[in-house]
Each structure stands twice: as C-alpha cells, then as structure tokens.
C-alpha cells in the first residue's frame, strides 16, 4: 500500500489474531514431510499410504483430546465455515423426518446464520433468538422458542467480534431436556479457552486450526456418536463418508500438532493474554474518551478487546493504525463488502453511528506489554485527528457548550 508520505512505523504490532494466527514453528515442522517425502494417499492399498494414514489418525486423537471427545467422532473439514455448514445443514437434513424447525442466535457467524437461511429457503422454518446488550443469549429465550417440530439449535460458544462467551452448558441443558440436537460454533474459542464438549453438553462442535496457531485450511466438526449427519458433498469413503475427498494430510497434521500444543500451553497463554487484554482495555478506555467496550466485560475471550469509538468510523481508524504499523479490525459498514454494519453490534442494540466506530484488537502469543503500550500511545492522536474532521463530533461539542 502506498500512503504518499511513507514513513517506516516505529514498531509492527499484529493485533488481529482472530482473523488468523501465525503457524507455530513446531507445527510447520510437523507438516513439512507431508508436502514432500510422505506424499502417499491415505486411502491407498500400498505402503505409501500407511504413514500419511497413521498421521491423520494421530491428528484425530490430538484434536479429540483438545475437546475431550473420541477420535472416531472427529470429521476433518477445510475451514470452520465448512464445519458450520456441515453441522447446520447436515444435522437438519438428517432429522428431516422429525420436524423442520431450527433455532440459531442473532450473532452467529455467517456460516451458521446463512446456512440456516438457506435451509429456510428450502422449506425449513427458522427462529433467530435475540441477544442482550453484552451479546449474551438467554437460555430461557431459547427454551421458550423450542417447539414440537424443533430439530436443531445452534448457538456459538464465543463471538469473534465482541468476544462474549455464551453460557453454553445452561443453554444445552434446556435444549437436551426437549430432546433436540444442539450444535455450537466453537471456532473462536477452541484452542484459546478450555472447551470440553461433555461439560458443554453439545451434540456437535466446530473448530478451526488457524485460531490456535495451526494452518489455514484445516478444521473439524466433532459430532456425537450415532448422530445422523448428511454430507455436504457426495464422494468417497474419507471421514466415514461424511466428508469425502482426498485428505489434506499436511493441514490435518498441522491441526493435530496445534491442538497438542494448545493443550500444553493453554494455561500460560491464557494468563499472559488476559493480562495484556486488561492492560489494553483499561489503557484505551482511559486514554480515549467516549469509547465503549463491546461484549461482556468479564465473560469474554482472554485474547479479545473490542470497542466502539464514538463520532468516527472504523475503516479510517484501521488505515491510520496501519500507517503506524498496527493491525486491527472493525465491524463498521465501510469495512464490510456489503456496506452493512456488523449484525452482531446491531443485534446488541448499538445504534448505527456507534457501530460505525467499531474497533477490534485480538491478541496472541507474539504480543508483549510494549505492544499494548504502543497502541495505547498511538490511539489518542488517531482518534483526535478523525474527530477533528467529524461533523458528528462538531455537533456534539457545540451541544455540550450549549
């Protein structure tokens, strides 16, 4: 990108780990042989297929351990979006004899929300349950909406835009009482916070490697044994016929290795990141007035700090932050290709002009206190500069003066 007056930033600070994490060196190292020497197809009936086949099964065990599941319940997919599509469409279509009603929350990722809407167009009935101001789904609200013909409920574990962690165990309890299948999109949480599917009480759970230092293109859906799941694609016997197509062996190996490391390092990562997150939240709320924290103040991802900065727009902030070497993201209308403000922020009841000031920092193991202090130092002049241009801010100041 050119800026016209290019100057090298003093520091480069990546705070967009929710978009994707880097791949850890140990993960890359584990993957490399499967791009070259160990190239066989796991399904082949000759010795070339043995080693990749074993590698996939090892990864299956590693991923199962991460969520406390059984290896034969893991279905490898290419992305979290695919896992969510497979769960929503595959579970709903598998239950079609029992009913046609599906429930999802208003702040689901589009891979769940739009999969449900696609089903709606195909004749299913959809209820979208609202969330409160912190982005929490009320378990009673879910229970109230369950009908005789409800076949599937899908509520995400943690929201990637506002960081709120849902009371999944409480929701699943109500859903299971009604004998309905329950899926949770745990893409943003798995590998970052403890995710135990038995404690959560779910029937299906999506996860993705690039949220916890594994490669892009590697994800999984865990589905409880003996649960009927219709595949999205038709093809061969891979993944028990639930996800046909030649396995992406290096990516799956990388996912497995990343899962193993996540189990080992999760406590230390969580301690470090939640401290940095709190430093950023406190620092920014102090340094920049008329800024609100979005999402739940305490029930949130340890590596997630999201805000709305009033009177200015998110994309403009991102451009100026980038010019200072800082990577963040935003849910403003201008940053979305559809030019619509984040459905998550709107569902939480934020007015459009506030949602336009959305700014999200997601932290990772590469960050340190110096990074956070740098951001807290660079933000006030960026905000000030944009506010000096803003007609909304000018109005606010005039009204304040009376």
């Amino acid at each position, binding site marked *: 990108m050119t800026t016209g007056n290019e100057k090298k930033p003093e520091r480069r600070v990546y705070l967009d780990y929710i978009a994707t994490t880097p791949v850890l060196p140990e993960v890359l190292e584990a993957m490399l042989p499967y791009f070259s020497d160990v190239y066989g197809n796991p399904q082949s009936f000759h010795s070339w297929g043995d080693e990749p086949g074993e590698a996939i099964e090892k990864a299956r065990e590693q991923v199962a351990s991460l969520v406390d599941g059984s290896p034969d319940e893991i279905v490898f997919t290419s992305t979290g979006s695919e896992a969510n599509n497979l769960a929503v469409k595959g579970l709903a279509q598998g239950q079609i004899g029992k009913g046609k009603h599906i429930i999802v929350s208003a702040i689901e990722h589009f891979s769940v929300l739009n999969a449900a809407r696609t089903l709606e167009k195909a004749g299913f009935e959809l209820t979208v349950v609202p969330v409160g101001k912190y982005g929490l789904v009320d378990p009673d609200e879910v229970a109230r909406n369950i009908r005789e013909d409800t076949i599937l409920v899908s509520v995400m574990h943690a929201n990637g835009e506002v960081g709120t962690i849902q009371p999944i165990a409480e929701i699943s309890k109500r859903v299971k009482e009604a004998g309905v299948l329950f899926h949770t999109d745990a893409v943003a949480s798995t590998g970052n916070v403890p995710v135990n599917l038995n404690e959560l009480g779910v029937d299906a759970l999506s996860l993705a490697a690039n949220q916890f230092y594994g490669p892009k293109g590697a994800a999984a859906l865990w589905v409880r044994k003996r649960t009927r799941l219709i595949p999205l694609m038709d093809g061969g016997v891979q993944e028990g016929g639930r996800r046909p197509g030649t396995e992406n062996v290096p990516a799956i190996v990388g996912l497995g290795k990343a899962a193993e490391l996540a189990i080992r390092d999760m406590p230390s990562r969580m301690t470090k990141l939640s401290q940095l997150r709190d430093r950023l939240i406190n620092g920014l709320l102090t340094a920049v007035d008329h800024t609100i924290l979005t999402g739940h103040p305490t029930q949130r991802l340890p590596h997630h700090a999201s805000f709305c900065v009033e009177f200015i727009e998110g994309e403009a902030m991102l451009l100026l932050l980038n010019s200072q070497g800082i990577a963040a993201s935003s849910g403003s209308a201008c940053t979305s290709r559809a*030019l619509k403000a984040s459905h998550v922020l709107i569902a939480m009841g934020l007015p459009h002009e506030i949602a*336009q000031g959305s700014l999200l920092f997601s932290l990772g193991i590469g960050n340190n206190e110096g990074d956070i202090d740098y951001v807290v130092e660079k933000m006030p002049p960026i905000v000030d500069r944009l506010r000096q*241009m803003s007609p909304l801010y000018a109005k606010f100041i005039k009204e304040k003066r009376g």
Partner: protein
Amino acid sequence: MPMYSGKVMDHFMNPRNVGEIKDADGIGEVGNPVCGDMMTFFIKVKDNRLEDVKFQTFGCGAAVAVSSMTSEMAKGKTLEEAVKITPSLVAQELEGLPKNKYHCSNLGAQALQKAIRDYAQKKGITIEGLEEEKGEGDEEGE
C-alpha cells in the same frame, strides 16, 4: 484492506480544507450513519466564485479523500463551474475508487451541490446547471 490508489491515500492522510467556515454563505449536509458516511460542506462566495470551501466528514478513507478532492476541485471555481463537478470526475481525479466505494464519491459532489443550492436559495438567485433538490445520501453505490 481496500486497494486505494496513491492519490486516495494521499488525500486521506493529508486531507485539504478540513474544518468549518463560521460565517459560511452556504452549507450542505448529506448522508446518514446507516449508509456509513456523513459529509458537511461549507462555502464562502465572493464575486460569484468559491473563495473558500471547507468540509467535515464522518466516514471511511474513501469518504475523507472524496471530500478533500471535491473541496480542492471546487475552490476558486465560479458557481457555474462548480456545479459541474460530478462524482465520476472526483473519482477520476482520485485515480479511481474501489467498486464498493463509488457511493462515497456521490456524497462529495452532492454535499457541494447542496451547499451551493443553500447559497442560491438564500440569495434568491438561479445558477445555471444547478440541479433540483433530491433525496440525498440514498444512492447506495454501484
């Protein structure tokens, strides 16, 4: 990241004519927060020429750059010349805009036109080429 031209980035990083004219002869306000951008243009007219043009903008990088470029193009022009500034001329001067940012260029020219219309109405004059008022800010790109 949007693929902005060097010219867009220059006008975003170093916007020209930001601010308010206290005793403006015309003011034009367009846009709304739902579509994402709001612009206010202030003009000062002397001897039928735009002696000064300033703006305030709430919006993305493209919106700021469009405001800045529009103000620069308008400054010093006669009113008749200024009303001929179209969104596509602004976009052209900015060496293009990403497709989903075209609507931002509409807002710049609209805000300027609205400020000139405001001036014309106050003065009770007609300006050749000045369009009738229409619903502003509802031209959603493409």
